């Protein structure tokens, strides 16, 4: 047996079932020598240590119960210091069951594995730990990276959000301002209007008057500021919409120059308008904005010019020439919509563009002021930029004007910039892209006076104006000469008119300077010309009384020449009277520009024609009438400031109610009306009377103002009933009578002070037979400001109301119509009463019957006069009955006055 297990140094032994060792693979004895006989040794007692340990181990583990058939296979029994495989097998022999056990050290079977196992385990564990650690590290890194990215993203989002919010709030502000514009201006307008009224008050002391005037100036300044800011914000918020209407550009600019001339004269600055003849008469665009542009520019010039002149030049260019020259250069500079159109138009210009022609209108504002530093030429157009920080202090202003100008110019398809000029001052050049209507034959009527033999002698102070005017007069074919002061004038006059007689010729000759001499000589060469002498009133010495002498002097020549006088806005009436007495009827206001000059010339020509017994066509008369109206217009300079944002606002509301242009048009219409209705057959008279009107309106600035508030506020503030008092001053008020009555009712004091004047101006017909009730209700309603007519039964009520249709015929004679004069067409539309209070129970004809009758009579017309029933019954059937016959509301007796008032108000507001 040894050989079996020797290879692995294991042991094998056989035992009996009891455990007696039968055979081993070792040399250990199997028998013990005991006293009696040799005994078998138990396996557990054998000398061989391993076997012994093995047996003992088995015994320990399994006990002695090595039952037959039980096989034990143990893989690692620890015997001593080694691990052993122990396997047992069972030999079931008949007479001797044998259990065999094999003990093999583990080392030989799994030895290597055991060795390696540990190492492997260690390695595995360490490896997995490493991996774990690395994994964690990786995760950390990853998450770090991701979280950073998330953070960055979050920041980006929040930045974007913040920016969006900032932009939105900016937008909101602009929008808010733009929306608020009306709200902000209304109180200002009210303030100014009220101040105007105050100024016209006779009972002010000098101090008060000065104070009020000062307040008014400040208010206008504030309003101007407000308008500027609102304009800007409106433009920024994109709400500026340019109107597209036809207007006469020349006229607008002339009006503007007129307006500014007053200021100019005060500053000793000359304002000259020099528009070329080929400028189109009518253009399409937003007249108010165009005027605003120039108003801003000119007012800037005036602000900064203390002497010299301000010239507004204009000329135009055809679109395609402009295109060729600038198309490629300025492409990028074109900021607005015209850009894509330009390309198209570049191709189609000269072709028959039936609709509109685009014209490039160039303008220049040239002044001799303090100039702008070349470095600032670009930045002055920025908002709130002023060339010199001290400007605000010295001149006031916000620095917004040029910004607005530039925005508007750009919007109109043009550009503006400051140009270099020789000499001191500023030259601003801009061009606008405007459409001219297709009937372009309507260019400035080419006036041609070549055929007429006219000589014009200009005696004007302002050299610039004179030069410009004489150049133009040359161009249109007139001989012209100019003098600049009184002495020269006298000399020239003497020379010209005594030339034929050759008296004093010598003396006079020497004192004239060269150019003048040559001019005079030219004139002398002409054959029997018509002389027109345009004299500036400033040539007369107005400080002393010499002017009368001077006028007398001119009398000598009055037969030979026609004198036209250029008056200032503040020329006194006395002078005008004097001039008129002497037969000088041609009077125009400074400044002198083309339209006026043409007008003068035409007048003279026409007069000549008249004198030659020619019939002047009415059309011409009408035209010159228009011219008259125009030239005699004098707009109070303090009102020009408000020309701007208001206008486009109003335009947006569908009416052009702007103060300046509105006044221009309104006054034109008014003066035209006055002219056509009440005046002249001949030109002279016409001019005189208009000069009168002009004089009066200029003399008495107070009178002008109520005109303006009424026409202005009448439309601007329909809501503000408190304005009512204005209209009563004005004769040609267009207000409804309700407002004019309210002023008279305001005097009634009342205890319901909070409701004072609630029913102002309402005409109420009260049909009530109970005298007490009649009286009470009447007093009650009159306290509230209504006018009450009381009748005693239904029949009278119906009759009272049935007078309405015949109202139209008897408008002026009917007694109840107070507060109306002339032009009111409104009364024809509204019934005589605003409301009827109808008692239901009345003799002769009760309330129900009366209402039925009234409604029947109304059925043809569109009226529906509110009828309120007064009934003592308070049942629902009564209510139904009232409504059935056509009543609008009902009150129960005794009357709750508050309820009555509120009912009346609600019913009349609806119909109002």
């Amino acid at each position, binding site marked *: 047996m040894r050989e079996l297990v020797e290879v692995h140094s294991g042991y094998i032994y056989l035992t009996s079932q009891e455990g007696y060792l039968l055979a081993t693979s070792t040399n250990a004895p199997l028998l013990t020598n005991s006293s009696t006989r040799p005994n078998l040794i138990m396996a557990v007692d054998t000398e061989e240590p391993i076997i012994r340990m093995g047996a003992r181990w088995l015994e320990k583990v399994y006990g002695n119960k090595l039952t037959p058939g039980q096989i034990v296979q143990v893989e690692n029994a620890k015997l001593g210091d080694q691990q052993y495989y122990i396997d047992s097998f069972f030999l079931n022999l008949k007479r001797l069951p044998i259990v065999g056990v094999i003990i093999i050290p583990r080392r030989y079977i799994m030895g290597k594995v055991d060795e390696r196992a540990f190492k492997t385990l260690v390695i595995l564990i360490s490896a997995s730990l490493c991996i774990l650690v690395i994994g964690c590290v990786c995760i950390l890194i990853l998450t770090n990276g991701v979280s950073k990215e998330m953070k960055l993203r979050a920041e980006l989002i929040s930045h974007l959000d913040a920016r969006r919010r900032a932009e939105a709030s900016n937008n909101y502000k602009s929008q808010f301002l733009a929306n608020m514009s009306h709200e902000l201006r209304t109180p200002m307008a009210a303030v100014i209007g009220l101040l105007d009224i105050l100024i016209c008050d006779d009972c002010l002391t000098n101090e008060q008057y000065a104070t009020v005037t000062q307040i008014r100036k400040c208010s206008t300044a504030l309003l101007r500021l407000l308008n500027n800011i609102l304009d800007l914000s409106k433009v920024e918020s994109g709400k500026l919409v340019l109107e597209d209407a036809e207007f006469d550009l020349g006229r607008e600019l002339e009006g503007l120059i007129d307006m500014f001339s007053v200021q100019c004269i005060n500053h000793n600055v000359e304002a000259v308008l020099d528009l070329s003849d080929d400028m189109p008469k009518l253009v399409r665009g937003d007249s108010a904005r165009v005027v605003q542009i120039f108003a801003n520019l000119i007012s800037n010039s005036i602000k900064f010019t203390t002497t010299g002149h301000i010239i507004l030049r204009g000329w135009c260019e055809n679109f395609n020439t402009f295109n060729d020259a600038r198309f490629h250069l300025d492409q990028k500079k074109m900021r607005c919509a015209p850009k894509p159109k330009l390309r198209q138009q570049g191709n189609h210009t000269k072709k028959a563009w039936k609709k509109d022609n685009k014209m490039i209108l160039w303008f220049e504002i040239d002044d001799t002021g303090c100039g702008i530093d070349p470095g600032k030429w670009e930045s002055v157009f920025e908002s709130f930029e002023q060339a010199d920080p001290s400007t605000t202090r010295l001149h006031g202003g916000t620095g917004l004007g040029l910004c607005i100008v530039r925005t508007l110019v750009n919007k109109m398809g043009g550009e503006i910039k400051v140009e270099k000029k020789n000499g001191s001052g500023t030259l601003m050049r801009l061009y606008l892209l405007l459409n001219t209507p297709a009937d372009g034959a309507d260019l400035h009527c080419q006036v041609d006076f070549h055929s007429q033999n006219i000589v014009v002698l200009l005696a004007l102070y302002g050299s610039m104006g004179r030069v410009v005017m004489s150049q133009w007069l040359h161009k249109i074919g007139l001989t012209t000469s100019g003098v600049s002061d009184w002495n020269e004038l006298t000399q020239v006059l003497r020379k010209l008119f005594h030339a034929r007689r050759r008296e004093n010729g010598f003396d006079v000759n020497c004192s004239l300077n060269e150019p003048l001499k040559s001019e005079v000589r030219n004139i002398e060469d002409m054959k029997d010309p018509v002389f027109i002498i345009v004299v500036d009133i400033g040539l007369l010495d107005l400080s002393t009384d010499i002017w009368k002498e001077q006028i007398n002097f001119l009398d000598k020549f009055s037969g030979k020449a026609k004198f036209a006088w250029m008056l200032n806005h503040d020329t006194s009436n006395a002078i005008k009277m004097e001039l008129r007495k002497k037969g000088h009827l041609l009077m125009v206001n400074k400044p002198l520009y083309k339209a006026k000059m043409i007008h003068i010339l035409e007048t003279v020509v026409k007069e000549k024609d008249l004198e030659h017994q020619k019939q002047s066509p009415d059309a011409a008369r009408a035209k010159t009438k228009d011219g008259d109206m125009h030239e005699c217009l004098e707009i109070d300079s303090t009102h020009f400031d408000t020309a701007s944002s208001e206008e486009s606002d109003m335009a947006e509301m569908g009416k052009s109610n702007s103060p300046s242009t509105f006044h221009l048009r309104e006054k034109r219409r008014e003066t035209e009306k006055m002219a056509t209705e009440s005046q002249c057959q001949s030109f002279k008279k016409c001019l005189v009377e208009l000069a009168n009107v002009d004089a009066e309106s200029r003399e008495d600035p107070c009178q002008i103002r109520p005109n303006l508030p009424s026409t202005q506020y009448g439309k601007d503030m329909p809501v503000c009933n408190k304005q009512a008092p204005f209209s009563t001053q004005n004769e040609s008020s267009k207000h409804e009578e309700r407002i004019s009555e309210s002023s008279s009712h305001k005097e009634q*004091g009342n205890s319901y002070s909070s409701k004072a004047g609630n029913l102002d101006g309402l005409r109420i017909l009260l049909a009530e037979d*109970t*005298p007490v*009730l009649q*009286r009470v209700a009447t*007093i009650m309603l009159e*306290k509230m400001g209504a006018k009450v007519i009381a009748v005693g039964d239904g029949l009278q009520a119906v009759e009272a109301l049935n007078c309405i249709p015949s109202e139209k015929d008897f408008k002026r004679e009917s007694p109840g119509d107070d507060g109306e004069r002339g032009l009111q067409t409104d009364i024809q539309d509204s019934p005589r009463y605003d409301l009827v209070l109808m008692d239901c129970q009345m*003799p002769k004809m009760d309330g129900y019957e009366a209402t039925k009758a009234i409604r029947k009579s109304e059925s043809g017309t569109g009226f529906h006069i509110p009828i309120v029933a007064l009934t003592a019954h308070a049942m629902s059937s009564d209510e139904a009955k009232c409504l059935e016959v056509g009543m609008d509301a009902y009150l129960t*007796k005794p009357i709750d*006055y508050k309820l009555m008032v509120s009912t009346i108000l609600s019913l009349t507001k609806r119909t109002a």
Partner: protein
Amino acid sequence: MEVGQMQRAWVEYTRSLFREGFLDAQFQQLQLLQDESNPDFVAEVVSLFFEDSERLLADLTFVLEQQNIDFKKVDAHVHQFKGSSSSIGAQRVKNDCIAFRNFCEEQNIEGCLRCLQQVKQDYYLVKSKLEALIRLEQQIVAAGGSIPMEELSS
């Protein structure tokens, strides 16, 4: 009496009239309507009321004395009387009128006659009261004081 005393008397008297149901809130409204521009408003209205009422009562008496009573007419008169008395605030009279009308509808002659008596009684009562009030007011005004309306609301 001096002005203050008279004013106090006036206030007390007016309050009593309200308390006893002779006048109601409507009268107060009328009083409020009186001011500098209508200084005699209340007196005016009251006298109008008296005139009107006399006429109405006379008419009523006449109609009810007839053989064939025309209840429609009676009704119309009573309606008017009710209207004017309610608008002046003569509460008792108004209530009587209401009762009167009911009897009218029933065509109850007895009831109507009784009501007429009642109405007349109450009317004369309120008339004398109002006359006294107006006299007091006139005295106050004559003495240079003003009628303390505002005290009534307290």
